[in-house]
């Protein structure tokens, strides 16, 4: 699998199965230069905005913070800090709705910008080749950089892996319709992106970077080509426009002909992928000493009067961006975070821009009509024809509806990347991806429950075993004691000695008989009393008779 370096070097572009060609609609947003927008009234920074744990708070309500100041400290797990995107006052630390399809709340720091843009002291490592790998990785981590292309995986963690790799792939494909954030960034900041790539190559020790751009971005290609001209470690790869060629797995297949093993990582096949936006952020963190405070967001859709790509501070409320772009909703108000294929609709506009927010799409009803009534599957196989993972979506759909989770796993449901190509072509408009997501969630739930039940079962069984063992031991002890007694008795008989119990009993009997004989006249009226009591009574009576002077109370007390 990894022996195809010569083909890769020759610039072969492989292909991947399936894929679709939805209308690209990159214009008009892609034609407008990147712009800066007015500072919002508030910035809302969820402590956790990417894969990994939230960090520990470093500030309290009422604190004044400087631009670039870290507000959280990553814990021991894979967390990343968040920073103040501008100088501001902390006005609240409370749960706020975050960028999530369900409007989930996350603990967030709310800042009120003071508009002064006062920076903390920057610590650039401009001569990065003089610094070692660990120091650079630590700086990237402290800058809060997460993958800006997709899932927001902490970049430092991806770079920290120690494995010899063949290529660093820089993803500038941006295959989803509408989105042009990376396109604009490449057109306007090609040199800085490549500096970022230089840093990444230095850190990872990889010798060559492949920069992939889809052929529908001629200006970006030209800009990158010009910037690459003086660098030998770089090669540009133009991939044909087809959705989802920018998916990590698909792009790897296009550029190297290799496939990331199921449940594996690109580094298993000698590759590492970073998005162009991430490379740009790395350059800023290392060369300029600026943590990740802002990102490019595409504002697009026909419900916006001024579409285009903007620099948005992290934490900027979506409502502010919509206002800046002239949002005029029609009778189907809709804002999608992400693109039309994989983005999610926002339940409200008070959520903030987070590290993975690459696009906000506000389409009119006519532009992206909502799906119609789901009809019966006619097994046409159009979905299978377009599936980039070579799955059988129509089968998965049947199985998901039948809740046949074993069969779903057998048919590799978890290799589905949820690109939505199947649902895009389905003539019955079945929301296929929705069914897969639901089934995946349920399978994960079942696995979790099963793991819990397994632990409970193990504990129960251990307890049962312990009880059983203790019972055995108890019985064994008793048995041994009984045996010992038996043995002792036998030994006693053999040696001719009396049985001690028997002897004791006989001694008691003998005494009793003696006492009975001695006190017989006195104890006639109470024959059932024990010899000792009888003796005592007798003694008392004798005393009484002798003394004559004792009163009735004393008599009664003695008797009782």
């Amino acid at each position, binding site marked *: 699998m990894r022996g195809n370096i010569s083909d890769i070097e020759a610039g072969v572009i492989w292909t991947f199965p399936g894929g679709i060609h939805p209308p690209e609609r990159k214009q008009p947003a892609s034609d407008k230069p990147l712009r800066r927008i007015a500072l919002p009234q508030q910035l809302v920074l969820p402590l956790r905005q990417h894969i990994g744990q939230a960090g520990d708070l470093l500030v309290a309500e009422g604190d004044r913070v400087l631009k670039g100041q870290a507000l959280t400290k990553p814990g021991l797990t894979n967390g990343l800090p968040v920073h103040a995107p501008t100088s501001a006052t902390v006005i609240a630390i409370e749960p706020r709705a975050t960028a999530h399809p369900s409007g989930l709340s996350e603990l967030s720091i709310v800042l009120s910008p003071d508009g002064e843009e006062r920076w903390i002291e920057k610590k650039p490592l401009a001569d990065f080749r003089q610094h070692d790998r660990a120091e650079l990785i630590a700086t990237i981590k402290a800058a809060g950089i997460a993958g800006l292309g997709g899932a927001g995986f902490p970049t430092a963690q991806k770079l920290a892996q120690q494995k010899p790799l063949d290529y660093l792939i820089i993803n500038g494909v941006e295959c989803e319709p509408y989105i042009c954030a990376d396109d604009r960034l490449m057109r306007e900041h090609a040199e800085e992106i490549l500096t970022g790539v230089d840093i990444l190559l230095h850190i990872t020790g990889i010798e060559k970077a492949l920069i992939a751009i889809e052929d529908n971005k001629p200006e970006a290609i030209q800009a990158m080509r010009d910037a690459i001209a003086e660098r030998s470690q770089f090669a540009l790869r133009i991939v044909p426009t087809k959705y989802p060629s920018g998916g990590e797995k698909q792009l790897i297949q296009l550029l190297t002909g290799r496939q990331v093993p199921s449940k594996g990582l690109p580094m298993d096949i000698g590759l590492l992928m970073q998005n162009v936006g991430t490379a740009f952020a790395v350059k800023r963190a290392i060369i300029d000493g600026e943590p990740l405070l802002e990102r490019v967001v595409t504002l697009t859709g026909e419900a916006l009067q001024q579409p285009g790509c903007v620099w948005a501070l992290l934490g900027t409320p979506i409502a502010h961006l919509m206002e800046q772009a002239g949002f005029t909703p029609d009778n189907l108000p809709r804002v999608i975070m992400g693109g039309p294929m994989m983005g999610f609709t926002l339940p409200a506009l008070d959520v903030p821009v987070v590290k993975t927010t690459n696009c906000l799409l506000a389409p009119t009803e006519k532009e992206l009509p909502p799906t119609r*009534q789901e009809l019966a599957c006619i097994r046409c196989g159009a979905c299978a024809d377009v599936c980039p993972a070579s799955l059988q979506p129509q089968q998965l759909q049947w199985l998901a509806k039948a809740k046949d989770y074993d069969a779903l796993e057998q048919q590799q449901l978890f290799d589905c990347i949820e690109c939505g190509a199947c649902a*895009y072509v389905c003539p019955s408009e079945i929301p296929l991806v929705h069914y897969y997501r639901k089934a995946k969630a349920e399978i994960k739930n079942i696995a979790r429950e099963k793991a819990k039940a397994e632990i409970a079962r193990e504990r129960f069984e251990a307890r049962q075993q312990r009880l059983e063992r203790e019972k055995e031991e108890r019985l064994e002890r008793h048995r041994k004691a009984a045996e010992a007694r038996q043995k002792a008795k036998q030994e006693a008989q053999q040696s001719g000695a009396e049985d001690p119990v028997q002897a004791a009993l006989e001694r008691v009997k003998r005494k009793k008989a003696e006492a009975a004989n001695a006190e017989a006249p006195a104890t006639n009226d109470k024959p059932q009393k024990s010899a000792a009591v009888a003796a005592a009574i007798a003694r008392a009576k004798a005393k009484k008779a002798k003394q004559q002077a004792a009163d009735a109370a004393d008599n009664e007390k003695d008797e009782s």
Partner: protein
Amino acid sequence: MSFFIASSPHEHNRRQTSDVMRWVLLAAIPGVLVQLFFFGWGVLFQLLLAIVTAWATEAIALQTRNRPALASLKDNSALVTAVLLAISIPPLAPWWVIVIGVAFAIIVAKQVYGGLGQNIFNPAMVGYVLLLVSFPVQMTSWLPPATLSDNDLSLWQTLHVIVFEYTPSGFSVEQLRTGIDGVTMATPLDTVKTGLTQGYTLSELTAKSVFQGIAGVGWQWVNVAYLVGGLVLLQQRIISWHIPLGVIVGVAAPALIAHSISPDQMLGPVTHVLSGATMLGAFFIATDPVSAATSNKGRWIFGLLIGLLVWLIRSFGGYPDGMAFAVLLANLCVPIIDRYTRPTVYGHGGSA
């Protein structure tokens, strides 16, 4: 403001089942027109009867199953079944033949199995086979092509024959089939089948008038017209090329081999491909999505299997043509074909 919430993807290519079915119907138009030209108005009446029956039975069946009838009728799938069956049967067959066939196709082959998407057999072909085994005389009474016939039936005469089985002047279908030379005319494939069993050689048979041209008067043009319609379906990406090409190769390859071994007993590939229901079957019938294999490799195998079966039935079986039987037999094999042609999922060791 309350925002519209939906699950991704938010974009769709806007081609629904009804559009797919409509394309199939539109693409069949050239073939239907050529059939009309060669075989007269009967084709039109059969189509009308079939469509009315299909709509009525589909609506009744859906009502009975407590399903919304109107929404399902709009998907045009019943229409496709009706049209495919109507153009497959002899144009002058009595009215009740097509009514029984379509009703059986819709009710038993489709709705009893659970409606659209659930049937394992191609409904039109189930209807066709039912008719063929139940009413063999009516189902094989093809008229000679109009150019060879001296009976040119008017619209009214045709209707009269279909309703009462006789023309207004009292001719039966059997009499109408008699050609200019006073001999009852059969289809080219039927002529070959009967002739070979009677000991004629192919060269003697193909010298007959029905065989003028490449593969028989009329029929070759019917096949060419369906080929044209099929190419439109391919161009519109309504169907993939795997099944049609599979069928054509499946018929032509064994025909070529057999013909080169025994040229006087076995028809050649060109005749096979342009005869009978080859093109209609390859592009319109075998490609029915519901009952066909789903992966591209599976579609290839499915198509080849149909082609091979058609050739076998035509060459060695009891019927002159075998598309319906071949399609149904291949339908039976679909689950196993699908099972063993499942492509390797990304990341599971397949090559790029």
